[in-house]
């Protein structure tokens, strides 16, 4: 017998995923804005009577009449329309105790399905803090179903919820199925019910309103938003410096250790020039990536994200986008893949498509290593205007360049390939919350894990392949590193494609690095690490990649390389997700072509202009 299934259903941001994590021990992403969850997730739950059941976490939705692709997932699961799946045996309706009116309206809609149901009256802690008192027994009686107060983030009420769930799964409790209700009628019924069960009327959301008075101020608001984003990028550079040096020194120490132990030859070259130089070049960036993620997770969990979307809507409307798109686009700074998936919450298909197409222009964390290496090599590390640092400013400039490119691309796309009517912006603003420590830590930990796993698998594999291509065929005895590269497989490939890139100032080594960099952006750094490690003679091996690049590239080339990376579509995984989300190869191919063209033009212009000026 297959185990019983209970589905978590409710308005966006009610705390479904928090409850799901608490019940099943899962570690799904939680955030304080509507539309965090965009896929269904399943996890196990052991009931007090010993039975094991499955719990499904679903995207939040305002009704069973979906607007956007993520909401459609929820409707399909609840109504059993999902291919190969049956109707859930029970529904756990998760509602926010501080917003009974709207959330009860959805409960009343769900109730008409006639399925066994239990209500999790979540965020009861916030209701208490606001001075709201809710008569739980009366609510349960009037709804005709069990109601359990819960605090998902503090694991309160979980046992009671599981206990109420058990009898529902025996199939007896299902009510009568009614035709879907008319929304205005349901709203009024919900408002009456909410008024009846709310005993103490507190002052709602005072803290939130006070914060908003500052951060949504027409003048101070945008300044604060810009300051937060700017600080984020400054921090990435400033705070990561020390830990990065430790990692670099650690890798150099290992290289020294192997050099002393292994005989000079191919094996040593594979380990030191291939594995350690390549993977090490990427792993060094772990501290920066963690700082970036810490900022993004804190923004997501605090509730500020929707405020940022609010402040940005006007600007985004100018280029035909929706303020809502700010959220997927900001998370694309971490990685375009979740960003493209998060675009599911945008209901208008053309808006959604445009957002997906420009998401790769947001500077993802995989580009950070590339930028950081080039900036460290070519941009002087000196203070500017007291508080800032030139390297940080250039990094910020590159991020800004990507954003401006994205806005320009959206502007053109919305007038050509994704032409369509202008959209609405309608979004609920959550209460501010201090980031839940556990969710914050899990988010960071998962990121670090994913990054290191990528370095240890994909990047390591590509690095080894590249080492083979660079080390073979071997040059005759006594030839130097440069000759070796030149006549190796990689050198020949690089030489063959170099004519394409010569006009924009790229040399053979860059051409070699671009090919593996197609699989994943940060591999380009690993590839340069490998290429220059093999090219270097004994004395140079001690130098870091940064120092070697400084000697090898003219400044215009370095700048062109940076410009290239702002736009270049160098990530197969992004293209694959675009294919999955749009259900065709058409859009990913389009994405590749237009980004490639933009990258080429941007790098070319940078090279020509800087060559003329410098």
């Amino acid at each position: 017998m297959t185990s019983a299934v209970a589905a978590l259903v409710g308005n966006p941001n009610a705390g479904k995923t928090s409850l799901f994590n608490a019940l099943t021990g899962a570690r799904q992403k939680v955030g304080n804005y509507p539309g965090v969850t965009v896929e269904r997730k399943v996890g196990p739950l052991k009931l007090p009577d010993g039975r094991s059941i499955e719990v499904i976490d679903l995207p939040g939705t305002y009704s069973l009449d979906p607007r956007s692709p993520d909401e459609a997932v929820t409707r399909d699961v609840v109504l059993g329309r999902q291919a190969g799946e049956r109707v859930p045996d029970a529904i756990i309706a998760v509602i926010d105790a501080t917003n009974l009116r709207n959330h009860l309206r959805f409960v009343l809609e769900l109730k008409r399905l006639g399925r066994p149901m239990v209500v999790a009256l979540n965020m009861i802690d916030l209701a208490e803090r606001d001075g709201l008192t809710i008569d739980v027994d009366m609510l349960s009686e009037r709804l005709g179903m069990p109601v359990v107060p819960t605090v998902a983030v503090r694991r309160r009420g979980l046992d009671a919820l599981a206990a109420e769930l058990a009898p529902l799964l025996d199939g007896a409790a299902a009510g009568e199925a009614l035709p879907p209700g008319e929304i205005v009628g349901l709203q009024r019924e919900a408002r009456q019910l909410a008024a009846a069960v709310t005993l103490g009327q507190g002052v709602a959301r005072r803290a939130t309103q006070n914060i908003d008075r500052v951060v949504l101020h027409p003048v101070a608001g945008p300044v604060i938003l810009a300051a937060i984003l700017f600080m984020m990028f400054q921090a990435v550079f400033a705070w990561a410096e020390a830990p990065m040096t430790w990692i670099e020194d650690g890798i150099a120490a290992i290289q020294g250790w192997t050099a002393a132990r292994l005989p000079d030859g191919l094996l040593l070259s594979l380990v030191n020039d291939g594995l350690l130089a390549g993977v090490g070049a990427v792993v060094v960036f772990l501290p920066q990536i963690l700082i970036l993620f810490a900022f993004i997770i804190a923004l997501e969990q605090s509730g500020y994200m929707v405020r940022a979307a609010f402040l940005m809507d006007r600007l985004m409307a100018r280029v035909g986008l929706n303020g809502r798109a700010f959220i997927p686009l900001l998370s694309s700074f971490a990685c375009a893949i979740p960003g493209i998936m998060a675009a599911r919450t945008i209901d208008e298909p053309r808006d959604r498509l445009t957002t997906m197409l420009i998401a790769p222009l947001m500077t993802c964390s995989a580009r950070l290593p590339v930028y950081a290496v080039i900036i460290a090599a070519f941009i002087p590390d000196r203070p500017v205007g007291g508080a800032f640092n030139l390297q940080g400013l250039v990094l910020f400039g590159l991020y800004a360049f990507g954003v401006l490119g994205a806005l320009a691309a959206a502007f053109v796309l919305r007038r050509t390939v994704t032409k369509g009517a202008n959209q609405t912006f309608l979004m609920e603003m959550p209460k501010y919350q201090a980031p839940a420590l556990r969710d914050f830590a899990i988010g960071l930990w998962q990121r670090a894990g994913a990054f290191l796993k990528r370095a240890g698998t994909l990047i390591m594999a590509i690095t080894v392949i590249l080492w083979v291509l660079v080390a073979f065929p071997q040059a005759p005895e006594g030839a130097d590193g440069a000759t070796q590269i030149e006549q190796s497989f990689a050198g020949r490939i690089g030489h063959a494609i170099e004519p394409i890139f010569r006009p924009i100032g790229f040399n053979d080594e860059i051409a070699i690095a671009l090919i593996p960099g197609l699989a994943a952006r940060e591999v380009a750094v690993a590839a340069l690490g490998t290429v220059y490690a093999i090219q270097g003679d004994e004395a140079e091996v001690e130098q870091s990649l940064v120092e070697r690049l400084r000697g090898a590239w003219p400044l215009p080339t370095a700048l062109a390389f940076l410009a290239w990376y702002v736009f270049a579509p160098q990530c197969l995984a992004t293209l694959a997700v675009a294919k999955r989300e749009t259900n065709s190869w058409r859009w990913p191919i389009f994405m590749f072509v237009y980004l490639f063209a933009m990258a080429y033009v941007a790098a070319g212009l940078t090279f020509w202009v800087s060559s003329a000026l410098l």
Partner: protein
Amino acid sequence: MTRIDQLAVGVPAIIVSIDRAACGDLVWRRLHEMGFDEGVDIEVLHKAPLGDPIALRVGNTTIALRRAQAALIEADISAVAVREAAE
């Protein structure tokens, strides 16, 4: 009667009508799903730079929407006093 895009910040009012024909069914439904309805108390909390979009308190929630949609909703300021007197 005031269109709510014209409401000043901090002035409570009660929704009188939502223009269904001008909204289109989709937006009309979405507004209702987010708590807009005749008889619901609202208040403009914030206006974004350049006055668009605006953030509204709708019952117990805060909703952000563009002026173009706000212009389709009418509210009554005096009704608040009437309601308070009744309570």
